[in-house]
């Protein structure tokens, strides 16, 4: 995969920019223009997190595929997308978007001899990432329900609970 990796490294900034744009375009049009402005890390946490973390993922894809680092980066993005207006598949789809982002830059190069094999190897790395993204999504959702249970329990453990006529909260 050495040759392809060199090209991927050379085109890194263009590919990352395209990948980022594709991800942010999954948000409604009026919002995506704001999310694309990542100059202010704290004023635009969603855009900035995506932009920072996909770069780390990209480096891992071209590097050692360190599973710890990959997990942390994926988790940072997935945590956000799993509480937003997305279905499970929409939440993890951003991983696959790297394929189109990279293809757009390297389509010509792939015609060279031996490159297709490299590309297939690279694609399978992306697929691995996607599978981890599913795990991370499942984790996040589980965490949300755990936290909800904990919060309910915390309320139930209020000091002097039995004395204070806890109001009956609405039920579904």
């Amino acid at each position, binding site marked *: 995969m050495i040759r392809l990796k060199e090209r991927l490294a050379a085109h890194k900034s263009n590919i990352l920019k395209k990948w980022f744009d594709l991800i942010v375009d*999954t948000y409604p*049009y009026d919002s995506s223009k704001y999310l694309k402005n990542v100059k202010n890390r704290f004023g635009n*946490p969603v855009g900035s997190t995506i932009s920072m973390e996909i770069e780390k993922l990209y480096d891992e894809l071209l590097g050692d595929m360190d599973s710890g680092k990959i997990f942390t980066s994926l988790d940072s993005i997935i945590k*956000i997308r799993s509480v937003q207006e997305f279905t499970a598949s929409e939440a993890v789809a951003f991983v696959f978007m790297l394929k189109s982002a990279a293809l757009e830059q390297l389509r010509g190069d792939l015609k060279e001899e031996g490159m297709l094999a490299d590309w297939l190897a690279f694609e399978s790395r992306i697929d691995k990432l996607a599978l981890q993204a599913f795990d991370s999504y499942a984790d996040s959702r589980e965490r949300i329900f755990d936290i909800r249970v*904990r919060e309910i329990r915390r309320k139930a453990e209020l000091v002097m609970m039995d004395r204070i006529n806890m109001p009956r909260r*609405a039920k*579904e």
Partner: protein
Amino acid sequence: MAKDKIAKPEELADGINYTPPKKDWFDPKVEFVRGRYNYASTPSGLEYLGLPNPRKWQPDQEDWKLPKDWQKIVLKGFKERLAKFRSFKIFMDICVRCGACADKCHFFLGSGDPKNMPVLRAELLRSVYRNDFTAFGRVLGKLAGGRELTVDVLKEWFYYFYQCTECRRCSVFCPYGIDTAEITMMARELLSLIGCTIDWITTPLANCYRTGNHLGIQPHGFKDSIEFALDDLYDLTGLKIEAPINKKGAEILFIVPSADYFANPHYFGFLGYLALFHEIGLDYTFSTYASEGGNFGLFHSHDMAKRLNAKMYAEAKRLKVKWLLGGECGHMWRVVHQYMDTMNGPADFLEEPISPITGTKFENAKSTKMVHICEFTSDLIYHNKIKLDPNRNNHWRVTFHDSCNPARGMGLLEEPRYILRSVCNNFYEMPEDTIREKTFCCGSGAGLGTDENLEMRLRGGFPRANAVKYVHDKHDVNLLTCICAIDKATLPALMDYWVPGVEVGAIHELVGNALVMEGEKRDTDFRGNRFIGPPEAQPKEGKENV
């Protein structure tokens, strides 16, 4: 999964298009997905308060059981409010859609949902205003940006106006000072006219109206809670401490949010107040009826806020105190600072507050006669009236969240920081754009802090959590302090999700830990953590900032 999310065969065959279709914001249809909205008010709460249209319903049901002439009721209420509140009329008219507020709302930043942009949130109401109350709109309708008030528009109001925490961050950035929080307040009043309110507002309201506090704690229960705390303090310090209740002729009436004496982690701050007052020998009293500083009425309507607030002065009068002191609470202070004086004042029967310990005159509270506990305590520290050992908080690496109401609502920015720097050695500020006037809301205020609404809260709380994560990663911060009861109740869940390893605490918890009391015997903080000793044993790092 919603049906319309299943891909059509031709989409699958053609590869995937991830970009959502461009949607006309005029389209009001919203989907009520579990985890993203609050349950509706129960009939019993509404009946108790004498509010309209009590019935069993939930927002995700098709039929909201609205009164037959609901449109007429809402439009009439709209018209009345335009005449009564000048600011409301002005806010409806003057927005130039410059967009300066668009990306300033934490719900927008966390969700990416354009209708959470303050300008569009307000537009939900403004479009109906244009349609029905402007000459242009009446003739041109949609062309003039007007929308008819339909059931779908009403549901959209409910969805998005119960997705605004009335935090006022957007107003800081608006060149015209348009306060979307006040627009939300008006919208909620209109929704309330036809019984479209949420349970986590009306049930606490009903309780508060009945017993004086949100949980419906009766006087004997209140007394038990205080005694329970005094027992705990005895176990922790070896000191027998008193806390007067309904003591006539005390100098000061002390009012706290009820969560302070029953919820975790508020309770540790409550222990801090009790220890402090004991140490300085303050002549104060609690009241069993003014047993709640918080005022959920603010999240419902002006009238309700006034009704609940009235007990503060009423109890001050009954107990014949000189002035009022208030605990760590958010919306309580919004009401006290911005509305109490005109709602239920002037409190001429009270005296201008003077600290009996330092002699400081609290000029800022000249009119309301109510002083914030952080003003009171920082004044004590400034005059060296208490002995503090900040090393006792060395196990905490602390940051401070400016809660929206004390920070933006009343400008209480320096006092909490002054206290923190005096009671602990490791204090780190979060980044500039996320604190003080520009602080990010917890995402759970204004009645939205329920477990059923958790996903929405996690969205709205993300910008705040993101800044906490920064100081957690950079300085190992492990305690997020704040001075708001809602924050203390809801930030723990936010931290669990976004920044595990960070706990939440009160400023007066750290004050209580650091306070060296005469005759005390203690080696743990209020949570039972052992004190870990002087800074020599600690990693050397600056006290200051990022």
